[in-house]
């Protein structure tokens, strides 16, 4: 069977659900009011905004007062990191050091790059390493806390390899040290149940769960200095006229995702495991990330002797849309920092393929991917000068000094 297109890149983004689009529709032209206006139309928008906030608060089981709508996951992450740093610098409590932040080596670039920038502003950052499955080294995390630590931030689940972190344990440790704990839950929210015990701040993005792009969420019960100053929106924490249609859409998408979570989690995990088992049947392949502590929709496999960009483009020709952690696909020409942090060689990282499932994927799609990928891998290996020749390999084994 030939499919026109199979989209398996849901960690990148998802299509807008029709129920979400329908919920958003009235807020573009009809109920277009500014939520800050006093008149009826303004109050209509304000009601929609606050109802959305309450809906999301109920799902997360948190106080709606602590929810701030932003433009993206990137903005939420920037806000909590810089906002906490600025707040502490303002306090001037820490004379020698401006403050210290703990995070992991496999965070999303919007955490990594923000931390790097904070370093240029006089803050200090510890990047805690992860093991070969991508799970943070808890002992080292624990040891990283200092007297001047102002924030610990560890992602709930990784966007590239899908590894789920022991957030409950990490948040408890931070709480014992009296340090606020933030988690970037962009990939986990709506896909797996979240345990928010001792979690002080959380980042979510709407377009990863069939909501509109341009909407993010920051939950925070800890103080931070706003990045955007202006008309006092979002309780003075994020100025700018609220994106009411987008926020309504995000709340609707969240509701649907939480309602369907149990069922989708099981269904996608089954498809995920079929994909992993099938792809690992290809010679010289390996799974990246943890076998079980893994997002139900994430598959990440490396194939030796081939380069990921070529693989993704060839798969696209077969109608399969996927991604890779290869350097050649990035603008910086550096292989994925996540794959390097779990100990992959540059070559192994170059040959990585990420498939991320969504609610529209089914058994037929999995079968199609498993029918076509081995051929594409073989085709590229045929072309590759790095693939060892069979005869040569045998010779090498005979002359192995360990057997002499």
């Amino acid at each position, binding site marked *: 069977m030939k499919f026109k297109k199979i989209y398996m890149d849901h960690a990148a983004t998802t299509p807008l659900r029709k129920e979400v689009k329908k919920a958003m529709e009235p807020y573009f032209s009809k109920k277009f009011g500014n939520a800050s206006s006093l008149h009826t139309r303004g109050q209509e928008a304000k009601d929609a905004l606050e109802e959305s906030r309450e809906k999301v608060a109920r799902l997360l089981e948190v106080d709606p007062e602590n929810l701030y709508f932003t433009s993206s996951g990137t903005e939420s992450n920037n806000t909590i990191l810089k906002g906490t740093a600025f707040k502490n610098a303002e306090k001037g409590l820490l004379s020698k050091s401006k403050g210290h932040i703990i995070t992991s080596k496999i965070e999303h670039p919007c955490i990594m790059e923000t931390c790097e920038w904070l370093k240029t502003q006089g803050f200090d950052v510890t990047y805690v390493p992860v093991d070969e499955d991508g799970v943070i080294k808890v002992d080292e995390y624990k040891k990283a806390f200092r007297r001047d630590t102002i924030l610990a931030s560890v992602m709930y689940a990784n966007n590239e390899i899908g590894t789920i972190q022991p957030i409950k344990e990490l948040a408890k440790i931070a709480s014992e040290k009296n340090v606020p704990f933030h988690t970037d839950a962009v990939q986990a929210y709506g896909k797996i149940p979240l345990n928010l015990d001792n979690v002080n701040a959380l980042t979510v993005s709407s377009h990863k769960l069939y909501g509109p792009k341009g909407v993010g969420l920051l939950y925070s019960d800890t103080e931070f200095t706003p990045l955007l100053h202006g008309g006092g929106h979002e309780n003075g924490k994020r100025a700018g006229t609220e994106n009411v249609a987008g926020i309504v859409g995000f709340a609707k998408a969240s509701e649907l995702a939480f309602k369907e979570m149990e069922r989708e989690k099981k269904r996608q995990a089954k498809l995920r495991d079929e994909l992993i088992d099938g792809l690992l049947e290809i010679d010289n392949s390996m799974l990246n990330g943890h076998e079980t502590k893994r997002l139900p929709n994430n598959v990440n496999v490396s194939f030796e002797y081939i380069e990921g960009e070529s693989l993704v483009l060839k798969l696209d020709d077969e109608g399969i849309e996927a991604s890779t952690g290869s350097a050649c696909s990035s603008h910086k020409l550096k292989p994925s920092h996540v794959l390097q942090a779990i100990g992959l060689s540059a070559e192994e990282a170059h040959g990585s393929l990420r498939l991320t499932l969504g609610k529209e994927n089914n058994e037929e799609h999995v079968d199609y991917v498993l029918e076509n990928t081995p051929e594409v891998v073989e085709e590229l290996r045929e072309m*590759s*000068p790095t693939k060892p020749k069979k005869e040569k390999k045998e010779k090498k084994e005979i002359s192995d000094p360990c057997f002499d």
Partner: protein
Amino acid sequence: MILVSISDKMSMYTKKVMELFRNPKNMGEIEDADAVGEAGNPVCGDQMKLFLKTDDRRITDVKFQTYGCAAAIATSSIVTKKVKGKKIEEALKLTKDDILEDLGGLPEQKVHCSFLALEALEDALDDYK
């Protein structure tokens, strides 16, 4: 560093690059090659091997093997196409601008890929200089 999906490939590569990537010319190996050239390193994400048959200082056959991105494969293909049948002296005159022109350009971060095939060619022809 960031994981990139390649759905915007047409804005990334020209039609010519994609055509050569999909149907590379002269791909393979020459068992009894008169000259072999290599360039690149798989650690960096691209490596090329070039095989030549020569007769009276003329390149009679040429084949390549490439590990790398679409740009690396397309440039390998175009270099082999351009030097086949040429005198060695002429082949050595080939520049990266000739390659880029034939491909209709490459995205900025991929321009270095156009060096790879020329380096392999130079490596192969080293003994003939």
